[in-house]
């Protein structure tokens, strides 16, 4: 009898043990490494998704630093708001602890993803008709890795090169830095290898936005141009310039025979997804965010007021020539020159790119003229964030001179475009061979596209024949400034040309416009905004303190050791 109870209990117990199993001991609903790189995924679907992530980590410009453009830390613009994050760069600079544009971890994270893809993707057997696509993807990952290294090198100088390694916690992560040359050579070699397997240009419409051979040629050329520039080429080794020039010539030669040319309309370059000029862009969904962020503050689209975050400077406005292509100081309006520059009507008869780059007083926008005069709707005074200079940024924004509200627009950030290639070529060519014919040809081509009047020889498009090499260099630099404004070029150009210390450390200017009746008077005013550049330290970014403190093999850039 007693034993029967025990049996009952034992049976109950046994029942318990078998019935209480764990539901699942594996995150079955989650994507695992095995699933991602499944050898049998003959369409490579998941692998392609992984590659899409890497694409999404390419440099994206626009209002990326605390809501401001990086160019708001150059002489082209200032942020409209006080205490903007980006202002730290012009107000005491970046430190190993606080750097508004620190991208060390982000780029190494992206490089890791490229290496993961390169390491694992070959495991997948794609079906026959996708094999070529697979070859492209591998080359794209290689290119992207080189692009991320270029982003690092442009900021920090030489950085540790990881090769194809996917680092693990068991590795010794205390890697030393490679030299600047080693890094540039790595980028150049990677581009050389990748270009053979990248998609040839032009690509079908559906593939637009993917990396092509032209992108590899451009990145290689750009890396070489940076390496030849005064910051990285203190002895002015002509051979470095020659290498850059040759690479650019190759890019132009390949590009012009593969469908690249200057787009006929300057504004189209930024507003159409596919055009002849874009070599590589960060492709985004259509949005109104650029309009809302940067258009003058008096405009309300739907229920949202525009924020006018960027205030271009008088310096940038003055850099635009007149409609004849002449500097405003050389083309003053007079009875015999009625189309010259008129300080009392300063925006008339100017390079058409001016009105596509900045908003100025009186320009049409959403059915009314922009009012940046004192007390105007876009410069009302008081505590609201508003322009500091009398201008707002217009570039990249849709064509909303009429209409009542913004509609979704293509806002792809141009990483490489053909005009950049031409401008880089003329720069290198001028350094190697002086202002020879091809330099004039390409510059005039850019100006013609800009809508500058042709004029007559020897002053075609406002560029006089027979300039000295130095004068030509200045002209190229100015052309680069106005053509590429707000595209995150000048910020780096000022550094690689090693002229930042001359450009900075001077006050910037804006305009004060007073309206009396229907007349405007324009007064240039000096902005009370710090605009510092501490040379030579600021030519390179400091490596983040958190990395330096963990890695004794990592040497900090010059001049950062003694200061915080």
């Amino acid at each position, binding site marked *: 009898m007693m034993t029967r109870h025990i049996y009952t209990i034992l049976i109950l117990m046994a029942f318990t043990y078998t019935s209480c199993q764990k*539901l699942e001991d594996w995150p079955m609903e989650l994507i695992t490494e095995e699933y991602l790189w499944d050898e049998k995924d003959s369409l490579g679907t998941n692998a392609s*998704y992984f590659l899409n992530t890497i694409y999404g980590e390419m440099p994206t410009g626009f209002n990326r630093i605390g809501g401001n453009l990086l160019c708001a830390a150059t002489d082209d613009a200032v942020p409209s708001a006080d205490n903007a994050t980006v202002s730290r760069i012009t107000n005491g600079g970046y430190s190993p602890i606080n750097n508004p544009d620190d991208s060390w971890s982000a780029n190494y994270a992206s490089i890791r993803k490229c290496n993961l893809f390169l390491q694992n993707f070959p495991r997948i057997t794609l079906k026959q008709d996708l094999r070529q696509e697979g070859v492209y993807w591998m080359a794209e990952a290689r290119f992207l890795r080189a692009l991320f290294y270029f982003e690092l090198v442009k900021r920090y100088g030489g950085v540790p090169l990881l090769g194809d390694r996917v680092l693990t916690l068991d590795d010794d*992560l205390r890697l030393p830095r490679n030299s600047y040359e080693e890094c540039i050579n790595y980028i150049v070699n990677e581009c050389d290898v990748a270009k053979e397997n990248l998609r040839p240009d032009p690509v079908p419409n559906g593939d637009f936005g993917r990396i092509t051979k032209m992108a590899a040629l451009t990145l290689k050329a750009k890396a070489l141009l940076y390496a030849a520039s005064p910051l990285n080429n203190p002895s002015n080794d002509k051979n470095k310039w020659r290498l850059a020039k040759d690479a650019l010539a190759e890019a132009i030669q390949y590009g012009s025979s593969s469908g690249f040319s200057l787009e006929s309309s300057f504004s189209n370059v930024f507003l159409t997804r596919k055009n002849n000029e874009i070599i590589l862009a960060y492709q985004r969904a259509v949005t109104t965010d650029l309009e809302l962020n940067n258009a003058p503050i008096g405009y309300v689209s739907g229920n949202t007021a525009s924020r006018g975050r960027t205030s271009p400077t008088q310096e940038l406005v003055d850099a635009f020539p007149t409609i004849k292509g002449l500097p405003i100081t050389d083309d003053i309006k007079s009875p015999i020159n009625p189309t010259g520059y008129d300080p009392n009507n300063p925006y008339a008869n100017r390079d058409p790119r001016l009105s596509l780059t900045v908003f100025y007083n009186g320009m049409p926008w959403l059915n009314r003229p922009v009012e940046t005069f004192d007390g105007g709707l876009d410069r009302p005074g008081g505590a609201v964030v508003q322009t500091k200079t009398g201008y707002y940024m217009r570039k990249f924004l849709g064509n909303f001179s009429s209409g009542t509200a913004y509609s979704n627009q293509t806002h792809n950030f141009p990483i490489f475009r053909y005009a950049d290639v031409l401008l880089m070529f003329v720069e290198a060519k001028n350094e190697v061979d002086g202002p020879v014919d091809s330099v004039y040809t390409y510059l005039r081509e850019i100006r013609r596209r800009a809508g500058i009047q042709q004029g007559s020889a020897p002053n075609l498009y406002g560029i006089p024949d027979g300039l000295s090499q130095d004068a030509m260099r200045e002209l190229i630099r100015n052309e680069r400034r106005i053509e590429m404004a707000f595209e995150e070029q000048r910020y780096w150009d000022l550094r690689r040309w090693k002229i930042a210390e001359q450009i900075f450390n001077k006050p910037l200017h804006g305009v004060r416009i007073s309206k009396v009746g229907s007349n405007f008077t324009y007064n240039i005013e000096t902005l009370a905004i710090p605009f510092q550049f501490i040379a030579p330290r600021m030519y390179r970014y400091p490596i983040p303190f958190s990395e330096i403190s963990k890695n004794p093999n990592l040497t900090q850039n010059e001049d950062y050791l003694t200061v915080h």
Partner: protein
Amino acid sequence: MKHLLKAILIVCFSLPCAVYAQTIQGVVRGEDGPIVGASVQEKDVSTNGVITGANGSFTLTLKGVTKTILVTAVGYLDKEITINDTNAELTIIMEQNAKGLDDVIVVGYGTTKKITNTGAVTSVSAADVRNIPTSNIQNTLIGRAPGFISQQRTGQPGMSGAEFYIRGVNSLSGESQKPLIIVDDVEYTYDQVSQLDVNEIESFSILKDASTTAVYGIKGANGVLVITTKRGKIGKPMINANTEHAMQTPVTHPKFLDAYTVAQLRNEALRNDGLPEEFTQEDLEHWRLKDDPYGHPDVDWYHEVFKKYSYQTRNTIDISGGTPKIKYFISAGHLFQDGYLRNFSRGDYEAPKNNYAYQRFTFRSNLDMQATNTLKLRLDVTGRTGTTTEPHISTSPLATVYSYQRLPPYAAPLINPDGSYPWAFRSRNIYWETSLIGRLALQGYDKTFRNELNILFNVEQRLDFITKGLSVSWRVAYAGDISYDRSLYRNNIPAFYFNPVDSSYTIHSNGLYRLEPLTLSSSPQNTISRKTVNTLAKLNYARSFGKHNVRGMLLYNLDNVTRGSYNSATGVAAVQEYAPVVLQGTTLRLEYNYLQRYLLEFNGAYNGSSQFVGRHTKGFFPAISAGWNIAEENFFKNITFVDMLKIRASWGLTGSDVTAGNVYKTEQVYNPGPNYNFGETSNNFPSIQEGTLGNLDITWEKSRKTNVGIDAQLFNNKLSVTVDYFYDYRYDQLYVKDDVLKIIGVGLPYTNSAITENKGFDGQVSYYNRKDKLSYGATFTFSRARNKILYQGEATPRYPHLARTGRPIGQAFGYHVLGFFQTQEEVDNYPHLADAKPGDLKYEDVNGDGAIDQQDYVPIGKPNLPQTVLGTSLSFGYGNFSLNILFQGSFDYSYRISTNQVIPFQANLQKVALGRWTPETAATATFPRLSSILAGPSSPSNSSDFWMVTNAYYIRFKNIELGYQIPKSILRKFRISAARLYASGYNLYTWANFKLYNQDPEIQSGGSGAVYPVQKVYNIGLQIGF
């Protein structure tokens, strides 16, 4: 099985079936007279027993051979009597159980006697806290139980359970700081334990050291709160009913300045910023004279919106009793807590009732059956259902009242002359809000319904036929918990601005002329459901061999937890966090003592958790402890005033498998990322991202616990003393290290890396005496626990003052304030934040680099959790009167004020702002200069010790209970056996150094500042027994 059924039938009908019977008769008496309801049982036939009747008399027919009866009665020592003469009338005199030595303490999976206990355990009888008028039992233990440290963060009905810790915190992971809560051997969550009704509870035990927590192995590292519920005792049915009615009122009230003062200060702030004044002299004059209630309103919103007192009631009824064959405890309880909002409904049928409220019903049925002489069955069924109500409003009413941006005193009149609701036309908010009162009246409610059901079934078989003292039991327990939300609401109400100048009405920008219809949204919104099934099999052994006493326990335990959750915001279940968890383990306990003089105990658990993989699944957690009862030694016997003197020590290892976030920390998973666009037209393409690295090697946190203690009872058990010293070394803590180079390019996994230590002491001294009708006692408890981070894989900070290692868990960092800048010259000559002016805070430039930035942060203050907790309770009894008092104090902590609580013109201004710096009051200023810029240099958004009570403390008159036992002579007429009338209070008075900011000293540091205030409660109750 057939036999079981038969047993139950027998129990149910209690058929007497004696054949060769000898019948005995007698009376059971105590010191004060006959004992009614004592149990008289035959010793070797445990099913044969009776209960004494009206005069303590009984009649029992003996069936066994030894002819020994066992008499037990509550409050008396058990007595065994061998019957020699079955014909004589027996008079059995019971001895009162002296408070102390034979007390039984509940420990993990069993009980132990106080005298032989070698671990650090604190036991609190639920009877001591039963009449404290709070809805959450964890609010009653602080100050009574040494080692129990808690902070009640909010007083909101239904959510007012304090967060509590045993011996403070000792883990860097917040999730892994919480103690294990065990109710009748089943694990409960913080939330679940808040729902329990104290009337169902018999006792609380707080297990603190390794010796007592090792049986819970992988879950024992944070200490354990063990709760046992009441069970029936042999005796005639006792019906006990209790009703309590209370008024609640906030412990602290904010006191905001009036419109006239605020408007003046607003102008001053704008002047300080070089901006034009907002209000004209005429405006100010209106406010001073209060002559324009619509154009220049001046409303004390706090008093208009909140009432002073809100109601609370608690009612319970239970019946308990039993025969030797069946014992039962059945109870039901009801609690209702009303909220502090006034009723704004104007009889409008479209206004759903929405005051804060909490309503809870609890029921429990605990049954014990003696199925056969050796087989016991137990079935506990308990359920709780609670409803929490809140107004449907985007920002809570108190937060709105605190906010200057939304509701300055001159924001709007209470109501327009035509009875319509106004909108806050003078607020700083650009989307002027509609009337707070209107919204409270008409916007509807959010309700959360929470239902819980627990079932426990236990079988215990004595196995004396194998060896004496052996028994086996098997148990399965289920705990289910489901909650869901229901909201009946509208988002907007009509509101108008009344302009007294031309008596015009302007509609609010929402354009509503009439009420919108109500919207009903129901579950599953933010629903959590949880199912736990616990299975347990236990082998017990207890036997004495002469002077040697042996006890042993072997236990197998299996927990299965499945959780589901649905988030309406994302529309998906939070699957990752709620993966099913399985825990299983085997536990062994061995106890040995020699004459209760030398004590030795071993506890060990071998258990595992499905949160880990491979060889890291299972671990062994041993603990040993020993004690020496010095008073039992012969050489000590003549020291008569010492009844007990015991020193004890324990050492052992326990674990914690609690990990935050994804349970699959071992695996690296890949997640969908943001889409990317390809093609000539905008086309989204999906992406997959690499997730944080997994770590196959992760395992539970471990705690090496050392405890040394002393227990003493002196002067005839009148004075008792317990003191424990402890040292916990917590290592292998799951932590994401910060010292790995970023070039690895991926999120880092949890590793078992961090180390912290926690040490301190706790204990209590109590004295109790009784003389005739007078009894009195006092207990003093103390707890102190301080922790320190020993290692956390911290990257070397730029300056040593920024290091977290070596400092307590939860240390705050911020600027050290040197004072106010007094002159512009001083500002110019010392590093300062942008825009600093005279009257702003002067922060110390700690690193001397000429700039004030986060590199100048230093540790400020102490952690938010008190490091020292003291409690003093006093009790007096005289005749039918009793009085109990508890004072509780918390010390050694810090509290940081938040922007929403104090920053002028973000928060409404309180008295503290009157001490502002002005050039005239420079020498005596206690508050920075006023500024209209909210994130200015002196704002609390720059963490600094100015906005902190660095050495906070409070002492609370935590509760008082005055009771009167109504004399039996009166009750007899009403056929009531006992009745007691009492009045009690909770949080009656608080002494704190917080007065400046009018905040409750227990609320979360740096919190939003507008949590539902902690309440003080005045309560009366009546308890009746039948």
